[in-house]
């Protein structure tokens, strides 16, 4: 299967990995069974709070590991509710210029040999071993203790090394002056930015804007939660269902899991 998850997924992709026939048949059988089982329990009954809100003076905790689970089967081709919600929440927009910032985008992945395709949102994968953090010369690109990868724009010098290092093309450079930013999402010319997992919302115990929009107005394909908490909905589902992490072969340990890709 050809995978264009980031437009340059090559032979190293997990999708292209060959599995011997018998094992594949077994896995497919298992997957079908899981799907059948899932049909009855796919309620996605997920409240508005991924966790109890921390008190404002409380620091983020390393006990937590925020992650996303995205079900491509529920992600409609052509639906951009998550992208629109992110733009409104964080104050970026697509004005058609090639230099526009892009925190989240919709991708359609197609198998050219049989025409089968699916759609998925691509955003910062909040890797545990993030290449952007490794290469940053100033320490501006960093991973918070709860797994959210951010840019400290006070220290970012705009070298864009992280943009080159990211296998998911998740980061953008701001080329134009910006004004009237959202107070919770400062962004300015000469710095790099990417999805923050709506850290201001997560800190307040709320869902990211994309997750909220998808659940409210679209297919309910996105789920946020604490991967470290075995009782969280996301941890249960990641344990129960077959999930994929994009370019898992690179060993970046993304915090974003996909189903049905």
């Amino acid at each position, binding site marked *: 299967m050809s995978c264009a998850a980031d437009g340059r997924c090559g032979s190293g992709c997990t999708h292209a990995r060959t599995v011997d026939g018998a094992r594949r048949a077994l896995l497919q059988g298992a997957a079908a069974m899981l799907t059948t089982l899932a049909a009855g329990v796919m309620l996605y009954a997920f409240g508005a709070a991924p966790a109890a809100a*921390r008190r*404002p*003076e*409380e*620091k*983020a905790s390393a006990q937590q590991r925020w992650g996303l689970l995205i079900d491509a089967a529920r992600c409609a081709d052509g639906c951009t509710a998550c992208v629109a919600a992110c*733009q*409104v929440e*964080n*104050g*970026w*927009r697509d004005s058609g210029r090639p230099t526009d910032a892009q925190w989240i985008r919709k991708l359609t992945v197609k198998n050219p040999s049989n025409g089968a395709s699916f759609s998925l949102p691509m955003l910062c994968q909040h890797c545990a071993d993030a290449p952007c953090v490794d290469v940053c010369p100033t320490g501006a690109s*960093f991973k*918070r*203790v*709860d797994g959210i990868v*951010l840019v*400290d*724009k*006070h220290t970012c010098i705009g070298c864009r090394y992280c943009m080159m290092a990211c296998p998911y093309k998740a980061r953008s450079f701001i080329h*134009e*002056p*910006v*004004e*009237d*930013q*959202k*107070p*919770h999402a*400062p*962004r*300015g*010319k*000469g*710095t790099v930015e990417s999805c923050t997992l709506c*850290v*201001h919302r997560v*800190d*307040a115990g709320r869902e990211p804007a994309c997750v909220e929009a998808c659940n409210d107005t679209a297919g309910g394909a996105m789920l946020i939660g604490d991967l470290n908490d075995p009782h969280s909905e996301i941890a249960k589902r990641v344990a129960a269902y077959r999930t994929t992490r994009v370019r898992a072969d690179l060993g970046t340990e993304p915090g974003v899991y996909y189903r049905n890709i």
Partner: protein
Amino acid sequence: MRGARILSATLVALAALAPLAPAVAGEPAWLPKPARGKGEQCVADTAWMRRNHMTALSHQRDATVHEGVRTARFSLKGCIDCHAVAGVGGEPVSFASERHFCRTCHDYAAVRIDCFECHASRPPAATTGGADGPSAAALAHYLRSVER
């Protein structure tokens, strides 16, 4: 000589404007008069804030960005919300206006700050957010003009 003439002209202009601003007893009339914020008092003593606001903001910014501490007392957002200065039409002015609370003193002290290259310089009310329209161009022009 020319410099002295400009200086004296400026002083004359300031003296002419001085009656417009209420003079605080004991303070020279030519000192900047930043607009009063909302509410009864600032988050700390005014004299302390004048001397230490930058340290408080800098400390708070690291705690917020890196550790997720979101206390309200020294948040820049709080300063901006409280010290908004209404401009023409009642909308709060941005940092491009010399009436902006921060600029009142920073212009006088010739201390250049770059907070507002990334942070919003006015409360979000009645603004679309993230726009890069004419007002962004005005702000960019001002920021360029004060570059070293």
